[in-house]
């Protein structure tokens, strides 16, 4: 294909300033990929192209230059492509075997590869024994590798065939070689998103990413943003996406969805929800990423929205993994866990490598108290992706339910390792240590959980209670004070808040330390809460008694005591910080 080198040159020179140029490149790469049956790359490029302004008629890139070989192969290629589109891969390959053009060669090899994959999947059904099921493999891979490596050595591979070679290598578990080939593919044909995406799956850490020499092209920014998201380096990813939006891709649904996913990963739920809603407006029939959206709705317990989403998606396409996950979440939110598990199972039938569904199914089984099935589901999730912290966390929870706190330490630790700054794992670890009466470790965990930003605001309370048990009164008081500050400063009303416990303790603490003013303030506050009202009153009485004995009772306190039944004037909760020692 003669256009490829030109394209490459253009891609390398251009900057974001030249959106017209980018648009042109996208249009040409779309037609290139379309000819070769690389549907996913076509989709990606088209989405991006759609987000850019349309070109005037005379600016449209010329249709591809046709080489002599292409002309020769024209008929055979057209025939084969039609067979290919009908998924008759062997037939396509048969008619392409004599062709010489690069385009035809790619389709020839790609058909063979896909035919092998198809047969492999069919074979799994027909296997002869239980152990054989893992043994079915794509028989074509070996031959493909031999042929491609020969051509590779001779330097005859173009960007697309390099990509295919890389895929073959990856399937043969030759990951190192695969990475090299994919890098080469990105250099030869930077605009083919498929190579970048494969590279994303193969790069496991930031060091590896830094060691790769990638072509400097505008598409690299998309790649970097994507891989930052994969490697959980969310701030970097967000920054990249932001600069992409500013460069002119603001209408791209792809970028919006990616940002939303990134916000989801750092649990910035409101931001993510807003973005997803925007996405739904722009692209109402979109199914991709909707499972993530439903997760967010689930976390926020937004039943009507989730229900609407589920029904909408069912109307669009009910046999999609994402749809099934959304419905699963919907049922789970309605506490119909059996049905939820059923839908997650269906999602897995559609794609057994769907990681999220495994974990979610584990959660459902947990809700159903079916621990062994939950363990199975989580283990499967880990098998698919060892770095899935939710599955590790879920395993930990399962064993915690089975009352094996020591056993689950291992799993929580694994989860913590993967998400060092997630307070939930730390709190879970702390609870386990507490159950094992390892108070020192438990305290460390709680404090660390608070330091990394406690989501559920429970760590401090637990820390304080633990210190209370250990009769470290001053420390406990300190923790309670910070706890109260935290609760009131975050503004919104959280469930399971135990401000009253904290106030009660603080009241007693101040009372014991003869700080009667602070004690009475706490006691008054206690009276605001139902469960602590009586104790608050009792404490107030005690305080006044002590004060009677030592000095003449001050007038105002007497007043506040006398009209106990009238509601006490509420001080703004934020003012509470004023009485911290």
């Amino acid at each position, binding site marked *: 294909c003669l256009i490829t080198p030109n394209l490459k040159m253009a891609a390398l020179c251009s900057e974001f300033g030249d959106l017209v140029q980018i648009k042109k490149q996208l249009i040409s790469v779309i037609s290139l990929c379309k000819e070769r049956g690389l549907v996913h790359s076509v989709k990606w490029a088209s989405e991006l192209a759609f987000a850019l302004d349309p070109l005037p008629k005379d600016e449209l890139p010329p249709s591809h230059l046709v080489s002599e070989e292409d002309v020769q192969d024209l008929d055979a290629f057209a025939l084969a492509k039609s067979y290919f589109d009908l998924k008759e891969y062997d037939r396509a390959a048969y008619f392409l075997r004599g062709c010489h053009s690069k385009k035809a060669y790619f389709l020839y090899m790609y058909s063979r590869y896909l035919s092998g994959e198809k047969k492999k999947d069919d074979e799994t059904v027909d296997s002869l024994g239980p152990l054989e099921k893992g043994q079915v493999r794509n028989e074509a891979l070996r031959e493909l590798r031999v042929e491609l490596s020969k051509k590779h050595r001779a330097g005859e591979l173009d960007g697309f065939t390099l990509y295919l070679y890389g895929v073959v290598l990856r399937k043969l578990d030759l990951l190192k070689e695969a990475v090299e080939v994919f890098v080469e593919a990105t250099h030869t044909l930077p605009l083919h998103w498929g190579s970048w995406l494969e590279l994303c799956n193969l790069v496991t850490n930031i060091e590896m990413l830094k060691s790769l020499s990638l072509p400097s092209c505008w598409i690299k920014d998309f790649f970097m943003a994507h891989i930052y998201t994969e490697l959980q380096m969310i701030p970097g990813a967000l920054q990249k996406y932001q600069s992409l939006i500013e460069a002119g891709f603001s209408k791209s649904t792809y970028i919006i969805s990616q940002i939303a996913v990134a916000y989801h990963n750092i649990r910035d739920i409101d931001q993510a929800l807003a973005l997803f809603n925007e996405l739904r407006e722009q692209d109402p029939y979109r199914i991709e990423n909707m499972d993530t959206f439903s997760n967010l709705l689930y976390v926020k317990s937004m039943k009507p929205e989730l229900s609407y989403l589920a029904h909408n998606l069912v109307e669009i396409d009910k046999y999609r993994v994402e749809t099934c996950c959304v419905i699963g979440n919907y049922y789970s939110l309605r506490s119909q866990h059996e049905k939820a598990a059923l839908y997650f199972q269906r999602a897995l039938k*559609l794609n057994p490598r769907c990681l999220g569904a495994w974990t979610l199914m584990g959660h459902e089984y947990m809700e159903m108290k079916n621990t062994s099935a939950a363990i199975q589901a989580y283990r499967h999730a880990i098998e698919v992706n060892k770095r899935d912290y939710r599955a590790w966390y879920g395993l930990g929870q399962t064993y915690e339910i089975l009352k094996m706190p020591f056993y689950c330490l291992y799993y929580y630790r694994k989860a913590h390792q993967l998400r060092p700054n997630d307070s939930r794992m730390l709190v879970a670890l702390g609870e386990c240590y507490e159950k094992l009466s390892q108070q020192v470790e438990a305290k460390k965990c709680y404090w660390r959980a608070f330091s990394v930003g406690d989501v559920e605001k429970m760590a401090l309370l637990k820390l304080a209670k633990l210190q209370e048990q250990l009769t470290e009164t001053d420390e406990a008081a300190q923790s309670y004070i910070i706890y109260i500050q935290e609760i009131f400063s975050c503004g919104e009303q959280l469930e399971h808040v135990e401000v009253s416990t904290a106030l009660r303790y603080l009241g007693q603490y101040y009372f014991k330390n003869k700080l009667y003013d602070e004690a009475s303030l706490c006691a008054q506050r206690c009276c605001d809460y139902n469960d602590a009202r009586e104790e608050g009153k009792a404490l107030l009485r005690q305080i006044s008694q002590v004060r009677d004995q030592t000095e003449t009772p001050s007038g105002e306190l007497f007043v506040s005591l006398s009209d106990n039944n009238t509601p006490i004037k509420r001080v703004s909760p934020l003012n509470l910080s004023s009485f911290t020692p």
Partner: protein
Amino acid sequence: MASVHESLYFNPMMTNGVVHANVFGIKDWVTPYKISVLSLLYEMTTSKIALQEKRRLNKLILPLQQGPDLQLGQFLKTVEDCCPQTAFAVKIRLNEMADGELKDMEFFFTTLPNPTFDSEAYKTSVVGLFIRHMLLAYNKLSFSQVYKLYKSLQHYYHMGVPTFVADDSDMDLTSTEVTIGDKMERELDSPLTFCVRNEDPVSRGPLSQKQAEYFLAKQAYLLKNDDNKALRPAKLQEELNNMLKFNPDFAEAHYLNYLNSMRVQDIYISTHSLLHYFDRLILSGSEGKSNGDEGYGRSLRYAALNLASLHCRFGHYQLADLALQEAIRIAQESNDHVCLQHCLSWLYTLEQMKGSDSSVLTEDSVKMAAHFCLPYLASLGIQSLVQQGAVQGKSAHELMDALKDTDILHWKHSLSELIEISLAQTISIWRMYGKSTMAQQQAQLLLNMSSLEPVNFGVTQNNTEAFAVALCHLAELHAEQGLYGGTTEIFKHLKEQFPPHTQHAKLWMLCDLKIQFEKHMNDGKYHLAQPLVPAIRAQNKTEGLYRKAQVLKSLSRTTEAYRILQKLQVHCEKTRCTETIIRVLLSTAELHWESSDFSTGLPLLLQALTLSRKHHLQALASRTLLHLAFTQLMLGVPEQALSVLHEALEPILAHGGIMDKGRALMLAARCQMALVATRPNGREQAAVAIHTLDEAASYFSTLNCKERLRDVRYLQARLHSSLGQTAQRNRCAMLFHLLDRELQTPRAPTDMRL
């Protein structure tokens, strides 16, 4: 966005993302190997076979039918060993199928004797059942599966008989002329049949279920009994990874992985594999109730228990304790007494490892184990009690009685492992008491004992801890007698049996270091002994400290040595390590001698004597007596010294090491010398003393202990001189001079050391 190619197809046979190949509920699968067995059965029913051969074949059927899948070469060879004619016929039949077409295989299955009608293979017999199973399984195969089976049969056949095709015509000829005789036929095809590629069946990629199970069982057995014969850790890991790649649900492979990583002391992988195994096990037992004897509640308990044992192995006692508490708690909640009993025995082991007294716990454990009829745990408990008793100085007959009683139990239940441990324990006890002959005899008994377990997989001698202990004792005993050649041989064997990375290698490493240290100290090469101290200390802290003190003492760095010895004594009194206390006391007394302060050492020596008598440590008692006698000699009461010495001389000469013998005799001679002047028969006494010294000299020269030899020569020279035997005196003086020149170090005052 998922990978582009992953979600292309929808696979209807998957549930929960796992392909259930077993969708038709077939348990047996037709494999090429099974077809070979079937054709063997077919041949046996159709052709006439001599009675004797038929009998041999009949005996073969069951193992072939129920064993793991064999390669064709192996299979044919086994059959041929029984009846070459049938083997040949089977091969022909397989050849027909493999080199023919699909219809040949289909034809074969239709011609199989139908056990429902056939009388020879009755339908409920083992053979009949097998044939019926196979027919059923075959008939249920789909078209593509039949084709696949045929393909794999071809592959199987050509793997087993690579060059067979070329000789096809010849074979046909011979088969028509069977009458020519088996012999010729055998000659003809034996080289062909046996040129099977003799690679390890494991390395050929995918295994069948049975093969995998067999592989795991074999490796696990070898790991337990002789891990040198098992695959190398890296290789085994590779195989297991391979197996798990093909079948991630094969939980046992994870367990083997755990054992394997324990071998290389890899805590991360072993924890991971252990937990993974139990996660998987919980799945497989999920139908059961959660807190009965069966079901996954049970595996939960054992999971926690196993985790405890893992931490215990790696020396994380606190973690092990926590895990154990957990196991105990859940076992209590579900009333699982057997599991509780296991927990209890781990509990006392843990206590013991932490260094606290756990005899009460152990006794409880033994009682409970006896109550629940768990002989293994009971006698393990008793053995542990014996060990504690020995350290605490229980009387010998009680210990031996207990061991004898457990031995009866072991033999009754054929617990060969425990028999070995019990013997090893006896060796250790005898050694502790200083009865070297008895220890040696027991060691020989253990080493020559043939294992009770059927000799599996060519394991002749186990490399369990018991053997390591016995061999180490034997090495030390040899070293004591100055037989360093023997010691070297033993260590060579130990190194082979217990390579340095293995679990029990530490035993012989420490033992080797100690022997080297002793040797250098005896030779007076302190500079060589000194670098060994840190190595010893790395293996055993107490021992290292003691040795350090000894080196310092020899280098006359008295103050430092004294400080270390004091520290050590306090430490040992805390840990109740009697033997070391006594040795420390003796060393401290020796330190006092250095400063000619003999009387200060006396109470220490008496304390040592009491301790060693109380704990029946005869060797140490005799050594203490030697020290006492020496002190008395120095204090100027040689008669007393001699009488004390006589008490110790007999056991030392009977059981003691060669060094002790030499020292005892030299001391005796010196006492006699001291008495020469006072006794009337002075000359006779002197002659006796010379003779005793000669004997001592012979001992020292076997040890090549030149310093002491020099002392002996000096004393001899003086004695000869006092007797006026000039020639002998000059000879001794010359010998002394030679040694003195060789040693170059100035002679320490003789009187100052034992």
